[in-house]
């Protein structure tokens, strides 16, 4: 009896802390995607013709894409950090039913980033075709694992 009361008391204390426990992973993964978006933006704006092509900048951005996609993202997706349990995330619970698939899709993004890294310095015309697989990798994962914006 004493033990179960203590257990309930511990739960009562633990529960409000749960959302906060995910604060780090949420900030971490959203930051990770933001870094991807910023570097994609450097390349995409050149491909689109909104900024002048700059081989060095394009190469740097592509190198960053490769560096970020070489991180294993799974520590940033602890079980229970989905959009049904928490506010401020669009991560669907389906992620945790298919963690291996999430890893595989992330690896696809890494491959696409490597493809970009190879050609980013070769001129503006090379960017568009190399962006295709990057965009597809984003879409493939978001399609299954990210909720639409409210």
């Amino acid at each position: 009896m004493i033990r179960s009361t203590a257990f309930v008391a511990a739960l009562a204390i633990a529960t409000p802390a749960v959302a906060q426990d995910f604060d780090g992973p949420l900030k971490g993964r959203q930051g990770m995607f933001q870094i991807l978006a910023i570097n994609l933006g450097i390349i995409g704006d050149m491909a689109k013709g909104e900024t002048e092509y700059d081989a060095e900048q394009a190469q740097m951005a592509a190198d960053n894409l490769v560096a970020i996609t070489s991180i294993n993202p799974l520590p940033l997706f602890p079980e229970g950090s989905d959009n049904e349990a928490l506010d401020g995330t669009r991560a669907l619970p389906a992620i945790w039913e298919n963690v291996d698939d999430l890893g595989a899709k992330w690896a696809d993004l890494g491959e696409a980033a490597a493809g970009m890294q190879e050609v980013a310095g070769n001129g503006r015309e090379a960017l568009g075709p190399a962006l295709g697989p990057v965009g597809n990798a984003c879409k493939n994962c978001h399609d299954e694992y990210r909720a639409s914006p409210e």
Partner: protein
Amino acid sequence: MRKLLIPLAALIVLIGAAGLWLTRAQPVDAARFEGLEGDAAAGETVFIAAGCASCHHAPEAEGEAELVLAGGQRFPSEFGTFVAPNISPSSEGIGDWTLADFAGALTRGVSPEGTHYYPAFPYTAYTRMADADIADLWAYMRTLPADPTPSAAHEVGFPFNIRRGLGLWNTLYLSEDWVMPADTAELERGRYLVEVLAHCGECHTPRGALGGLDTGDWLGGAANPAGDGRIPSLRPGALDWSANDIAYYLESGFTPAYDSVGGHMVAVVDNFAQLPAGDRAAVAAYLKALPEG
């Protein structure tokens, strides 16, 4: 009393006849398509722009398998769940149809047997398709693989399961008029893509109580019938992207902030990416010309 009964009976017959008349299926005149020979290669572009495969490929199909139009994808709505039918060139699909049957389905929403389709199938958009595009699309779809899967029944309850009622619905919502004016060739092409082939209004325009599009709030954003989030407005006041941003999004799936496309728009972007750049630019021009709010 006898004197009254006869006019009353006549009146009832008349009302009944008027009801049958109003709710009847109205196929297209077969003569309209006689001698019209479609070009399958041109039809492929129409097929992509119209997004036929996106709804009619089997659930979970990917890559080449998306060209097998076996049906089976489910579309929930407040009227029930619609299941996309087989439209492959087999006898379970449209294999036994004529071009005029096909045109009747696309532009009038009627089957070769003379029953109404539900407007989950966007015939209210396709109704303005050019005859040549219909013939080209028909020629292309004849070249796709035949699939023997029977079409599943829609899961629609009373009173929406009475298809005759759709005849009345059509008198309210099936119109061949354009929604927006277009005074340049580019705007006309954009309008044809947005209002007809790509049927953007089906998701981006709010619907009234009977499920008809509220063209007064054309492309003004709407609830998502699948329940996930809200489908955004495409009007310039809400979508403040440049024309170049819009065209690039339709090509690459990247927003101006380099977020990626999601949900059903993934399939739409996959289709637009395969169209000529001029078509994406035309869609962007059309959207920029929409009313502000």
